[in-house]
């Protein structure tokens, strides 16, 4: 039974991976770029689910970690575009030389490292204090929103450093190659698929091991875990930090493919949307958030392209229906379906595997 389940999951994973790898053959450049963006979101969703689905900590502030990663990459790209000169928005704001905090971002390796380290450090700092003081549940959730408000307001206000509401855009090259050419976009797509696969597999190893069981223990009974000798705040801080770092990576991949980052992408509303991806896909599974992120964003794009004036109705309705009828998300539907099929007819097992290949 168990080995079969594992086998099935592995098949799903491989099928999806192969489809993603061959997607460039079927898609136009524009659509491939969109899919790449969705996959960057999927990476973030995995990290968010590690925190919410497994550890039971709901953060409504992951946009900010995503944003910090994205801005780190964008700052490097911007400097590369201006050839190390002062970016245009700084000049308007009356700056005459490159501010100190921009200097490290001239070097791509440093920029990438900081794009992971800065979100991780902020999450560690806030998480360490908050979890040590045993702030949990909705209090933490609101706290994470306050963090978003603080940082977004600062980002918008410090226009001379961050480009304000406009954010950073108009990039030209990365390592000397044009970032916007279809060829580099293809490369970015494959990098995203690769990173997604690596993060997915690593997180799977994490949650399947003893660590994952401890996380579930913390989710279902934090205080009981204390009396088993665990210090839940250490674990929560770690997962929060890890998930912030993953969000940072996702942000960097986002900027490479979308070519712009602005405060509208990192505020309260996107942060809530990120949680919705996980909820719709199915929290507490790793494949769920991936499906959720791609599904919700594809639906959003699809609806808004077909019905630009009414698409928010569809989106809102979708959230309501899925939450009410599918509390375990889309993956919950498949598990249910599979269970039913197996109960109904044992000989139908061939069909079941067929239905999976349609995933």
């Amino acid at each position: 039974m168990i080995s079969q389940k594992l086998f099935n999951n592995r098949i799903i994973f491989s099928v999806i991976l192969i489809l993603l790898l061959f997607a460039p053959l079927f898609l136009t450049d524009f659509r491939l770029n969109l899919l790449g963006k969705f996959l960057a979101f999927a990476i973030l969703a995995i990290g968010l689910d590690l925190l919410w689905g497994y550890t039971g900590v709901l953060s409504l502030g992951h946009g900010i970690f995503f944003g910090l990663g994205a801005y780190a990459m964008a700052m490097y790209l911007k400097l590369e575009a201006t050839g190390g000169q002062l970016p245009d928005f700084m000049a308007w704001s009356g700056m005459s030389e490159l501010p100190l905090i921009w200097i490290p971002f001239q070097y791509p390796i440093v920029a990438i490292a900081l794009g992971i380290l800065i979100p991780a450090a902020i999450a560690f700092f806030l998480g360490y204090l908050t979890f040590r003081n045993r702030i949990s549940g909705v209090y933490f959730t609101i706290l994470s929103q306050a963090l978003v408000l603080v940082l977004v307001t600062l980002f918008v206000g410090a226009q001379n450093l961050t480009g304000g509401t406009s954010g950073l855009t108009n990039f030209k090259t990365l390592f000397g190659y044009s970032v916007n050419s279809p060829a580099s976009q293809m490369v970015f797509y494959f990098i995203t698929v690769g990173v997604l696969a690596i993060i997915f597999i690593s997180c799977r190893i994490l949650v399947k091991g003893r660590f994952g069981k401890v996380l579930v223990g913390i989710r279902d009974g934090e205080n009981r875990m204390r009396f088993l000798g665990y210090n839940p705040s250490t674990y929560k801080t770690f997962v929060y930090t890890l998930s912030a770092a993953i969000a940072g990576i996702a942000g960097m991949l986002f900027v490479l493919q979308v070519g712009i980052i602005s405060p509208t992408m990192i505020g309260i509303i996107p942060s809530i949307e990120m949680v919705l991806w996980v909820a719709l896909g199915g929290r507490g599974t790793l494949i769920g958030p991936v499906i959720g992120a791609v599904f919700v964003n594809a639906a959003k794009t699809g609806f808004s392209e077909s019905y630009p004036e009414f698409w928010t109705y569809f989106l809102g309705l979708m959230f309501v229906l899925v939450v009410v009828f599918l509390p375990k998300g889309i993956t919950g539907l498949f598990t249910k379906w599979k269970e039913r099929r197996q109960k109904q007819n044992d000989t139908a097992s061939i069909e079941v595997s067929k239905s999976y290949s349609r995933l």
Partner: protein
Amino acid sequence: MTEMILTLFNGISLGSILLLIALGLAITFGLMNVINMAHGELIMVGAYITYLVQNIFMQYAPEKYFDLYFILSIPLALIVAAGVGVLLEVSLIRHLYKRPLDSLLATWGVGLILQQLARTIFGAPNVGVQSPSFLNGGLELGSITFPYSRIFILLLSLICLACIFYYFYRTASGRRVRAVMQNRQMAECLGVSTRKVDMLTFAIGSGLAGVAGCALTLLGAIGPTIGTSYIIDAFMVVVVGGVGALFGAVAGAFGIGIFNTIFEFLTNATLGKVLIFILIIAFLQWRPSGIVINRSRSLD
């Protein structure tokens, strides 16, 4: 000195606005544990009702009675918003009482739909509501002007607060509500219809949002996104005050209001906003359960 008085008044005034928008939430979120992200849209309902009543008066009522529209729209906003709240409770939220975080997600969807609905009905641009003439101008004491509209909102929020306290602590119906919120099984055993109480409580919370929407027409823009600009502030107030404590919400609202005004006065609006949220984060580190703490004996 005058500056200090004025800043203090502005702080109290901001606090009263925060209290008004958070009062409904303190009931639906604080007492019922429903994270209603559509609360902002219920505020919007109240604001649009005021707009509608104004238009009707403009068209049909003689000019000298025009100002009455505002007095009339307060109860009307309360009723309509409460009605929308009941609709929401019956159709959606009652299925989600055991899943508070899911209520957050579903009501977020409801919020999106209501916003778009407002856009379809009233158009995307802001609509204008003319303040009644008796609220124009202000009370002049020495060199300081206290705008009547601010004083009115302060009074309105205090009246709402008093009504709620009276209802919850002095009436039989209110006691039933408190009984259900504190111990559902026990109340059920004693023959209280928890279904009705849930509906009623949610209706009260929603209705208060409607009143807040009505009051906000005196101060700012009335458009489809009016709710989104207030909802987060409202949640902050409830959490800082302490979930489940009405008195906490009062302290939270005036605390945030006064500090925010002082910060803004000393620095600027952007920095003031940053500082107030940093203060909230720091405060919650110090008092993780808000100003007023509800003790619980259960392990988790």
